[in-house]
């Protein structure tokens, strides 16, 4: 499993997932059984499909949390209730400093000086997202994620009508952007990425009112609708990679269970980062139960969409305790 951990890191940085070299005995046994009882298997699959309920449990919870968190910022300012002051880049929750990890990184690299409050806020948020799942930030908090998710539906509808098609990019681009934006911060002494960050722009617009910068966000959305599905989150955003790194340490993740899976691939179709679900392809799962890699945003769309409950949220350690 140690090799798999590094493998998952490499996949997050852009490498394409490959067939696993080692498949455990137990997993091989299940792979074999699924082939041997093909007719039964297909019948069972059909049965599950026929009885599938359309559910949006996790999506609805997530949207509620995302909207609540962002409105808490807005109303803290408008109504002066002072619960959560600031914006997503940095804030104070009832007085405690919270500082976005990527914004903090950019400021530290550009300014090359860290004051105590900056350190405290960054450390707090680091621990918070280690506990909550790293890229959980993306799908549960980031306002651009929600907007992009809605425009993604439009993109998919246009794809269905064959008016547009999805153009993929190499996922390694995001790693390159992460490095380049970090280097630019060091070399120029400016937080170059913040000028482009739709997360910061949207968060500030929600709190301090609309700005011309929303035009840039609109451009990104148009690009995603007509040219490339979820391009910003998938191929560009260094914030996602920063939180992805944090997520490698996190106990909160989605876990795949080979025994429950009919390999229909619905989960990969709804997933923002389908490379983390490579093990659901028939014959690829190296173990009976496989935790999904750190690039997963823990959005829960796959959990909602799986007709047979093969993907579930799990907190490592907690499940063993209970």
């Amino acid at each position, binding site marked *: 499993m140690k090799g798999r951990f590094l493998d998952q890191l490499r996949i997050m940085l852009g490498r394409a997932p490959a067939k696993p070299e080692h498949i455990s005995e137990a997993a091989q046994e299940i792979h074999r059984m699924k082939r041997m009882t093909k007719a039964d298997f297909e019948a069972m699959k059909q049965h599950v499909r026929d009885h599938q309920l359309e559910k949006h449990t996790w999506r609805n919870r997530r949207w509620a949390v995302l909207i609540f968190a962002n409105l808490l910022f807005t109303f803290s300012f408008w109504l002066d209730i002072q619960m959560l002051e*600031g914006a*997503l*880049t940095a804030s104070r929750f009832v007085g405690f*400093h919270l500082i976005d990890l990527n914004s903090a990184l950019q400021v530290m690299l550009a300014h090359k000086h860290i004051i105590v409050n900056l350190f405290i806020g960054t450390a707090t948020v680091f621990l918070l997202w280690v506990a909550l799942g790293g890229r959980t930030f993306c799908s549960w908090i980031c306002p651009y994620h929600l907007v992009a998710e809605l425009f993604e539906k439009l993109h998919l509808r246009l794809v269905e009508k064959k008016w547009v098609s999805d153009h993929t*990019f*190499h996922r390694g681009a995001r790693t390159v952007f992460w490095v380049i934006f970090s280097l630019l911060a060091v070399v120029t002494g400016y*937080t170059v990425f913040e000028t482009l960050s739709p997360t910061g722009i949207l968060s500030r617009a929600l709190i301090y009112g609309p700005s011309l*910068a929303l035009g840039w966000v609109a451009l990104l959305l148009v690009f995603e609708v007509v040219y490339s599905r979820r391009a910003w989150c998938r191929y560009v955003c260094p914030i996602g990679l920063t939180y992805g790194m944090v997520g490698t340490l996190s106990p909160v993740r989605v876990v795949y269970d080979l025994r429950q899976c009919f390999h229909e691939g619905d989960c990969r179709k709804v997933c923002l980062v389908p490379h983390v679900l490579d093990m659901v392809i*028939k014959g690829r799962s190296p173990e009976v139960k496989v935790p999904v890699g750190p690039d997963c945003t823990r959005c829960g769309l796959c959990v909602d969409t799986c007709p047979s409950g093969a993907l579930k949220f799990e907190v490592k350690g907690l499940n063993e305790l209970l």
Partner: protein
Amino acid sequence: MSDDSDTRPPPPAAAGARAPRSGHRAQQARREFIRTAVLSCGMIGAGLLGFLPVVQAGEKRLRPPGALDESDFLSSCIKCGQCVQVCPVQAIHLGDITDGFGIGVPFIAAREQACDFSCDAVQCILACPTGALTYHKPDFLPVRDGAPLAHAPTLKAKAQDPEPTINLTERIGLARLARPEACLAMQGKGFQGPARGPAFKGEMRYMDVDRWKPIPVADHPYERDLCDLCVTECPIADAIRLEPEPSADGTRRARPVVQEQCVGCGVCEMICPAEPVAIVVDARKTWEGEA
């Protein structure tokens, strides 16, 4: 609907088609690579466009009190707007994408709403999480000549308090009588009514009204035989005074003279009833001796 292509050997028909398919794949990969290269250059280029407004910045923006020097300020500010939220007179605004790297960075448009220190404690500095606004500059940052104040500025509003000064070591700008010919005092004129007209939205704290609640300047009309608003409304002690100005016809005239204790808060610019404004604050200007 199935992802299950991996476990079975390819059907015989597909075997023959393998070579062209791999050619197709290679072409796809090549196209993806080119697209990705274009995307990368485009994004980095878009990011670097942020340089333009910074380099061009002909019109320097007034930053909130305690701001580091401009380039340090832009790099250390985390663009969160906590300073905006604590300001009792809403003097602070955030830069837009037209400011390039200055996006989300706070500034003060003094003519519309100056900082009158009605928070008493320079709350914006207290709110700043990164030290972009700071009471004391860290040692490794340079201090420009003429930027430090000779001594802690006394806040007129706090003159009776045990601690009458505010915690500010450097000025954010310096007031300048930019259009002496427009200055009412220089013309020997007085002033009656609301300083900036009844529609002006700017606010100020008036100690004789309410120490803790700033009110609109429009609700506080003045009556002066010789206009001296920039001097009387200045929140800082010994920052500006009125000097008699000789006149040919013997009428009483005066000139506002900026003193070394001027911190550059911009209240004089906001309150000046002349249109166009006679006295302005030059952002980040340093003291070079009395003009």
